[in-house]
């Protein structure tokens, strides 16, 4: 019941031809941020997204609202952007941000000189720091490795990327913008070399719709070059895969960073009831063909264990990977490439916004929309930093007591989602995809990773008539395959036991396996 007020976002648009001023491609943080910015400046627009919100890197990052300290030494400009946006988002997106604070911990052997540079660069960038002795740091985070040398407090926060997208999109919709999720761009309409619209495929009805616009904004992250090429131009980028693991427990209430130059496995972020640890950085070519390698899991787990020893014994429930869309650079090491962003005016009616990061999504949106309104020749200033996100008052947050109140007929035991919540998501939100239910209710996000409750949720969906029984079994198969992809790299210990139980249900009791 967290998100009922979003229901009109999913209503079918009538007709096949839609006219608007701006089409935004991409429903990640940047795209949704642009939609909100345009809405607040009174520019009519449509946003199209091939999946659900936060489908790409937004939903596959570590959910960190950077203080900028991570970049203070290597990328001072990115650091300054981060701390500025950090302050703004804490103000305007209270229900998405948990002000955890962060620690940079220095382990024996980590350079003291780096620490000195780090502190002075943070000061220059305007990032507040406080140096703590090991014992004071352990008071704050008791699970820290007791042999740390010292720790530095910085204003890092945990942020919910999915909720952030939803709330940005909500403002847009509220002000008359169109939001079409599960609509994939299949073609960009061009007239005399100029982009004048997009053709989108409604993935649920298979209907093709055309949206005509004066400007097209390409906010597709790792898919940026593909879309730019569809528009007759290009947007060269460097793609870098970053893999993360999720622990079954919230082992820390603060973000924990390693106080050393950026490297693999240097961050742990608490998020709701779990912790995310990351990341790796491996160059890739195709954003649609990335997998987590078990060696990445071992690498991240081993590094995380050095900061929080319990990470070595706690159960890992899943691993996932996202693709960072980085600006093209000469550097061969993807970590040394700037995390900055760039707006390309393709001079054909399309703008691409490239690079950047979740923490600076609002600033990226502001600069993009600045360029667009300049093109339109209108004067309208950005208001997104001053007005809190709409729709936050109705959000409940996650207190367990609220979730338990009146709960009846539990569908997802791990996250305490009941049948009424699932039916509400299906009926009033008009949800057609199992993943959408999961995003909006947290169904299937716990230790069994939907192994038990997805079958139930799909059973309920077909009982409501939203799906035929056959469709629902097909979706279940896809879901199990996708789920397995996430779990497989981190299968050992208790998670392996649970996985074999799940296997025995689907391949044994339900006999869904393929015959050898």
């Amino acid at each position, binding site marked *: 019941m967290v998100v009922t007020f979003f229901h009109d976002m999913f209503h079918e648009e009538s007709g096949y031809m839609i006219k608007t001023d701006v089409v935004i491609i991409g429903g990640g943080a940047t795209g949704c941020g642009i939609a909100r910015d345009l809405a607040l400046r009174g520019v009519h627009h449509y946003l199209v997204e091939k999946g659900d919100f936060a489908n790409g890197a937004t939903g596959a990052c570590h959910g960190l609202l950077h203080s900028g300290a991570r970049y203070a030494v290597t990328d001072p400009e990115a650091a300054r952007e981060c701390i500025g946006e950090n302050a703004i988002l804490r103000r305007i997106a209270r229900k998405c941000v948990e002000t955890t604070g962060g620690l940079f911990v220095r382990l024996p052997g980590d350079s003291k000189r780096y620490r000195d540079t780090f502190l002075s660069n943070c000061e220059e960038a305007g990032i507040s720091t406080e140096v703590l002795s090991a014992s004071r740091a352990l008071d704050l985070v008791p699970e820290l490795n007791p042999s740390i040398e010292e720790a530095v407090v910085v204003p890092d926060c945990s942020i919910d990327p999915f909720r952030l997208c939803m709330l940005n999109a909500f403002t847009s919709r509220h002000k008359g913008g169109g939001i079409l999720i599960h609509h994939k761009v299949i073609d960009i309409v061009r007239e005399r070399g100029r982009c004048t619209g997009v053709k989108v495929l409604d993935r649920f009805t298979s209907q093709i719709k055309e949206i005509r616009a004066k400007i097209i904004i390409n906010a597709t992250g790792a898919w940026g070059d593909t879309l730019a090429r569809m528009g007759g131009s290009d947007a060269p980028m460097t793609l870098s895969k970053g893999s993360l693991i999720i622990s079954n427990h919230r082992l820390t209430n603060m973000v924990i960073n390693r106080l050393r130059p950026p490297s693999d496995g240097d961050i742990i972020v608490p998020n709701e009831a779990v912790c995310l640890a990351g990341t790796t950085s491996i160059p890739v070519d195709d954003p649609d063909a990335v997998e987590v390698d078990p*060696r990445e899991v071992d690498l991240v787990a081993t590094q995380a264990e050095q900061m929080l020893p319990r990470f070595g014994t706690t159960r890992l429930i899943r691993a996932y990977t996202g693709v960072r869309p980085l600006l093209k650079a000469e550097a061969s090491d993807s970590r040394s490439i700037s995390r900055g962003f760039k707006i390309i005016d393709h001079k054909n009616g399309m703008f691409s916004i490239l690079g950047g990061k979740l923490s600076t999504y609002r600033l990226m949106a502001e600069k993009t929309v600045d360029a667009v309104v300049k093109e339109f020749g209108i004067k309208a200033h950005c208001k997104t930093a001053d007005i809190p996100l709409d729709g936050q008052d109705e959000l409940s947050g996650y207190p367990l007591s609220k979730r338990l109140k009146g709960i009846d007929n539990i569908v997802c035991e791990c996250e305490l989602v009941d049948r009424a919540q699932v039916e509400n998501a299906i009926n009033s939100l008009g949800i057609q995809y199992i993943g959408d239910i999961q995003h909006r209710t947290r169904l299937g996000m716990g230790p069994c990773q939907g192994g038990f409750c997805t079958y139930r949720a799909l059973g309920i969906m077909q009982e409501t008539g939203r799906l035929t029984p056959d469709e629902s079994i097909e979706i279940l198969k896809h879901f199990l395959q996708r*789920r397995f992809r996430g779990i*497989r790299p981190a299968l050992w210990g208790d998670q392996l036991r649970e996985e074999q139980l799940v296997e025995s249900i689907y391949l*044994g009791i339900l006999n869904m396996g393929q015959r050898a």
Partner: protein
Amino acid sequence: MSAYGYDAVVIGGGVSGIMASLTLASGGFKTALVSRGDPVCCLSTGCIDVFSHSDEPLSGIRALLPDHPYSLVGEKGIKDALSFFLEIMAEAGLPYEGDPGRNRKILTPIGSTKNTCLVPRTMAHADMPPGEYLHVISFQGIKDFFPSYITSRQRNSTYSVYDAGVPTTLGIAARFDDASFLDAFITWLRGLEIPHDRVALPAVLGTIDPASVMEKISRAIGRKVFEIPTLPPSVPGLRLFRALKRVLQSRGVHLYWGKGVTSVECQGRTVEAVTLATTGRAKRVQGKAFVLATGSFVSGGLFAGRDSVRETVFDLPVAVPGERKDWFNTDFFSGAHGIERAGVRVDGSFRPVETDLDNLFACGSILAECEIMSLQCGHGLAVATGVAAAKSCAQGLS
């Protein structure tokens, strides 16, 4: 510490451990069964899958590699073990039916069918000839059972829903143990005037004597009736376990239930005793021979670390196929993951290899190469190797 002495001590209270204990007890040996808790067979369909990939399980088994545990038992051994199982279940009052020479079909909760070999009598009519009409009974609010999955896949089928007052399978099954509830249900069912040939229900027809409940319903409506096994917690799995446990008790096997092994004592090439964790004084259980039947990963007989697999009681050597990246292939539905072959290797007499222990035997899913999920041979393998390992153990004792 209190000490107790036996001829044979079986560790593990699942199907293989119980069958091994019963085999030893019927050979006249003083037998103890040690179990950490109720076994994972409570989560199963309750059916005995022997080898579900072909219609004829025994001929399918003939094609298996020589290092598969079935090959160590041999065809006659498998048949004898299954007959012994049928005999035990008849004695327990939970009759099973089936023929090791030919698989039969049961219906799954999603309306597909599944090959299995021996079934509780309540599932005997699930193997329907084509063209017959089926009516499914579901229960108000029941979890994990959606009758429309079945009616959409089975031609000429329909369903009705009964309100049992509780939504869980175990709760509904407990209601069926009560005669007045059963009478009310039958009255309702007769009122439906079902024209179909057969009636199917989720497996909730009582926790004690489902065959009688089924026969009573069947007589009242003049239709064949059968059960559909449900997702865990599974009533037929629980019935199977409880029935086997009753026979253990009646045949004089001494049970140490809810107690895990905390240490083992070996003297040279002999296991002398195991120590059990109890709430009071630790118990030392001595035996002349030991049978290890602690199961695979789900049961806790094996534990997978990040890079290696451990046997949890004796720390026996475990055969593991490759590194962790090789444990699972990328396709969820193919089964045949490398990890399914992990386990304890045994010789022809079911003694673990690469150890110098003479009086230790192993059986069930802890054995290497058994590939239970992809071959669909779980309880059949447990029965066959449980009996075979116990016979080998008995030979050593006498």
